[in-house]
């Protein structure tokens, strides 16, 4: 890193931002905590795949699988391993993925404050806005990596345990395997997008406190609260504004033609959450006294 240079230059060069971002990314992804979270996420598809495999080993596919519930698409896994990707995303999106994101986002600023490194970060002429942006981008990068870890692990398990090939969309039409893979990638991106709102919320919470644990717990607590509120039918008037309300809309990508309405609503809502809580985090972080 160009430390000598940055000491002399008062207004940091744009390249400095990338240097900061790179060091942030390396720090975040080298943490044992991050690796453990990714490991847990990678294990979920393995679990689902093995469970479905054992369940259907007798030859008879569990035709009634869809009646009782279970994650979306689970009935189709035995016919096509690619569906394990969709199932795994549907299974991890309500809780595992956002929990991991909550941990990373909550830790972003408060964790630095907690360990007493925040003021040193600010002594280097990063600027608070820039540091905050870097933290947010790092969190989004984690969202993407976490989603891809789930998807890739699911694809590997699906390919190992189940046949692959042309697949039937939920609308009953057939698409080629390549098309299916493309849709799986698109789904992963949409799922990443679905987490950006929560990431901003977590970052805001993180600027409020000096305790990393408190910020993580608050973010994950908020997540659980919102998920519960989204289940109460009497609250249907506010539910469209809860960040998790349209999360499962990524499954609409498996319709033919794709049903965009809810997907677009989801991304709009995430953008709104990112804007509101991102700017709130900025207002808080640039105005507060850094004591740790």
């Amino acid at each position, binding site marked *: 890193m160009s430390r000598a240079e940055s000491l002399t230059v008062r207004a940091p060069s744009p390249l400095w931002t990338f240097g900061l971002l790179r060091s942030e990314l390396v720090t975040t992804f080298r943490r044992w905590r991050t690796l453990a979270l990714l490991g847990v996420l990678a294990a979920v598809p393995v679990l689902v795949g093995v469970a479905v495999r054992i369940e259907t080993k007798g030859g008879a596919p569990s035709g009634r699988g869809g009646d009782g519930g279970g994650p979306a698409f689970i009935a189709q896994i035995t016919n096509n391993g690619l569906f394990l990707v969709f199932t795994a995303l549907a299974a991890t999106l309500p809780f595992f993925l956002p929990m991991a994101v909550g941990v990373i986002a909550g830790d972003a600023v408060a964790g630095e404050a907690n360990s007493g490194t925040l003021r040193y970060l600010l002594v280097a002429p990063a600027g608070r806005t820039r540091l905050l942006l870097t933290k947010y981008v790092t969190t989004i990068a984690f969202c993407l990596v976490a989603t891809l870890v789930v998807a890739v692990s699911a694809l590997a398990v699906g390919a190992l345990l189940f046949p692959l090939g042309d697949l039937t969309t939920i*609308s009953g039409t057939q698409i080629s395997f390549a098309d299916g893979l493309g849709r799986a990638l698109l789904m992963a991106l949409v799922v990443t997008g679905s987490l950006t709102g929560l990431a901003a919320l977590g970052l805001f919470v993180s600027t409020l406190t000096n305790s990393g644990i408190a910020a993580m717990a608050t973010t994950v607590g908020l997540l659980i609260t919102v998920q519960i509120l989204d289940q109460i039918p009497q609250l249907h008037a506010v539910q469209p504004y809860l960040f998790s309300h349209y999360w499962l809309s990524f499954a609409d990508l498996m319709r033919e033609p794709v049903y965009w309405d809810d997907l677009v609503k989801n991304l709009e809502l995430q953008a709104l959450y990112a804007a509101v809580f991102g700017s709130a985090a900025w207002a808080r972080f640039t105005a507060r006294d850094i004591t740790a």
Partner: protein
Amino acid sequence: MAPYESDDSTNAGEADDLRSGRRKAARYVVPVAVVGVAAATIGLVPALADSGDPSLPKITAQQLIEKIAKSDVQELSGTVKVSTDLGLPNLGGLESGLLSGAAKGRDGSSADPTSKLTELASGTHTLRVAADGQDRQKVSLIESAAEYSLIHNGKDVWGYDSKSNEVYHGTADQAGGKKHKDEVPATPKDFADQALKAADDTTSVTVDGTAQIAGRDAYRLVLKPKHASGTTVGVISIAVDAKTGMPLKFTLTPAGGGAAVVDAGFTQVSFARPAASTFDFTPPKGAKVTEEKDKAGKGGERSHRTAPSQKDLGKSGAPKVIGKGWNSIAVIDSGAKGGIPSSSGKGNLSGFIGSLGDHVSGKFGKGTVFSTRLINALITDDGKVYVGAVTKDALVKAADAGR
């Protein structure tokens, strides 16, 4: 945004403190403003998008009805939103369980169209429809992360339930794709056809201005029962596409006021030919396929299961009909003494169902009235069933007269 100078407030005086405190507070204006803009957008955009009713050349009700009759839309695709609010008691998931449970039987498949489309009888649903000529139609019921599709392609009728991965297969000349579609009206056109069939000299039909439905200019046709004393039907409004004459939206408001009982309308429609692959269906590997069996024995049962909204609209079939137009009442002699609806079948349910009705008595004897916001049914203790889109009093009167 310039990087914040973190050292500018360390040695500030009191006045500076105050000023910087104010400046700090001012930053919170940004998130508040974002919330405000978002709220305003959510509130205002639908109002702004509603650019007023389009101006279209004048047309008489007669001409409009002819336009609908002549309408020959063969190719279309679109999204339909159907809301039905019959005012059935809210049983949570129970009523759908009862409906599909009754329909499914032991060997039934969840992909059987009769069991699936009865779900439309309550709540709000999104459907996608596509059609390409007489031989190829598709209706899909959009569910959360799943879909139920009914595909008619040539002589095949396929039902595919993606949630349970079950397939139902029938043939068109045996069962008739049309017939499947007729069982439960889903699109605005189906509803409008039923309503217009029922419209006779007891109905006042007028054209009431224009509307914009799914981005298309439409005339609004209003059907009103002339003698509104007996019937529960208030107003039926049908929005008819000005170019093609296809009904785009159907709304039935009960005489008692309140929300519409049936509200079915396109939210998006296109009259281009849908891709041919839309109608191709091959059962996925490993899916459980149920072939249609000879349903002769089940025919009677099926008529009970159809959505009640259909019965009132002049399509009573075999039962005797008293009255005329909107006041008509179907009389079914079930022959079962005891006054509990034979159609509900299951013995352990009869007590429960009986408790949902009101007990009435009159010259005809005693009976139970089951009411929804549209359809009322009187089941007398001697086993006669009077059903119609009429008020409770009209049912009792009919029963009295029937004696």
